[in-house]
């Protein structure tokens, strides 16, 4: 039941990321600075932190694969990076009682890790040759900031959902 809701919310975010976000972000953020909204990933990272890393892994792999099928030049790049990031964050930092600052920091860290893996994969397959220093300051760090902002936005509603679930079921997944 809950999982249906999570899937629907993630799907809605995925659709909005490609259709509405390009219009909300200023044109300069899409040319001079390359800001990438990874809102699906932020929600998956929260799932990894508060609920269960295996669930997050499955969501990361499947929504990554969805991205690859819809936009990608190849299958598996988003799937791999999202799944790996979600699992690693869940493995290292799964604490159901994280405070707001630390969870924001972890969301930003996860997004940073994801962007690094993503850039690494593209460099490995020679899909881009932009030097790392430029990408770090013009693409990765601005994206991490935007996604941390989104993480702040959804922190309270997500926390409420996760806490209610923990009280109701005393954490049945682990």
């Amino acid at each position, binding site marked *: 039941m809950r999982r249906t809701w999570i899937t629907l919310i993630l799907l809605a975010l995925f659709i909005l990321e490609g*259709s509405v976000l390009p219009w909300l972000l200023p044109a300069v953020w899409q040319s001079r600075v390359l800001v*990438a909204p990874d809102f699906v990933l932020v929600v998956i990272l929260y799932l990894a932190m508060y609920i269960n890393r295996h669930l997050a892994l499955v969501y990361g792999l499947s929504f990554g694969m969805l991205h690859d099928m819809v936009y990608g030049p190849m299958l598996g790049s988003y799937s791999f990076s999202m799944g790996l990031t979600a699992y690693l964050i869940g493995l290292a930092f799964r604490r159901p009682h994280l405070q707001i600052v630390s969870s924001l920091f972890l969301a930003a860290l996860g997004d940073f890790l994801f962007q690094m893996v993503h850039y690494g994969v593209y460099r490995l397959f020679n899909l881009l040759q932009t030097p790392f220093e430029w990408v770090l300051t013009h693409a990765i760090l601005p994206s991490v900031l935007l996604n941390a902002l989104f993480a702040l936005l959804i922190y309270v509603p997500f926390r409420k959902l996760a806490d209610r679930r923990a009280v109701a079921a005393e954490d049945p997944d682990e």
Partner: protein
Amino acid sequence: MFKFLGNKRLFILMIGLIFFIALMGLTLGRAKMIWPEKALKDTISWTQGLFYKPARYIAGLFEDVRELRTVYQENRVLRQTLSQYARDTALLNQLESENKRLKEELAFTERQKEANHYRYRIAQVVSLSPDPYNRTVTINLGAKDGIRENMAVVSTSGLLGRTVQVSDFYTNVQLLSDINDATNESKAIAVTVQGKEDSFGIIEKFDPETGMLVMTKIPQTDPIAEGDTVVTSGLGQVFPAGIEVGKVVSKEVGEFGITYKAMIKPFSSFEHLKEVFVVEMPELR
């Protein structure tokens, strides 16, 4: 060593890594999509199309208010251009009829006559990839409308990109801002200069740091100069001839000192896209 491998988690990670690297390598640069992929692509793109248009109108409203001040200036320039255009059209009609008459006298075949007759198909943008290094644009024309891979896509101001993956009702477009000379993923574009058609060069990469296209392999004796308008030459047989690409900003000696390279500022902007045109070339059989 055995203990290291015995670590189940690490083992699964290794298997995952091998699996994904193999998957990425195998699917990189494929043009054909399998049917579940096509169905998924069409469904998602259709849903995104529902949101893209309203978002565009709302964002457009704010942009209109901001641009109100420049409209007067723009209007004046446009009026001047229009009178120029009327004169050019008269000349063009005359030349066209003369050209037609000459072609008939020289007994051109029907196919030869049609070779430069391009059709522009209008398409609406339905979504834009959030991936910062690969900003794939999806448009609402697909295989059912006769779209194939490697067709040129233009905006009202100039060349925009080419179609890469075609599903039944939607098509992915690779923008010029993602082309790169190291991969088979992108095609180089043979270009020339408007008014100096013996000039030659190839655009094969985009430099995101400066936002300009890099035109290479320009011969030393080439007449290209700063401020020239660069158009496609059609020599590559992928892009049709005569589509405006951009303006030459600078010209310098290339990497090996044998040929020149020029930096080109593209005419089209690659963000906040609304309508684009797919150029249909007559079949080259």
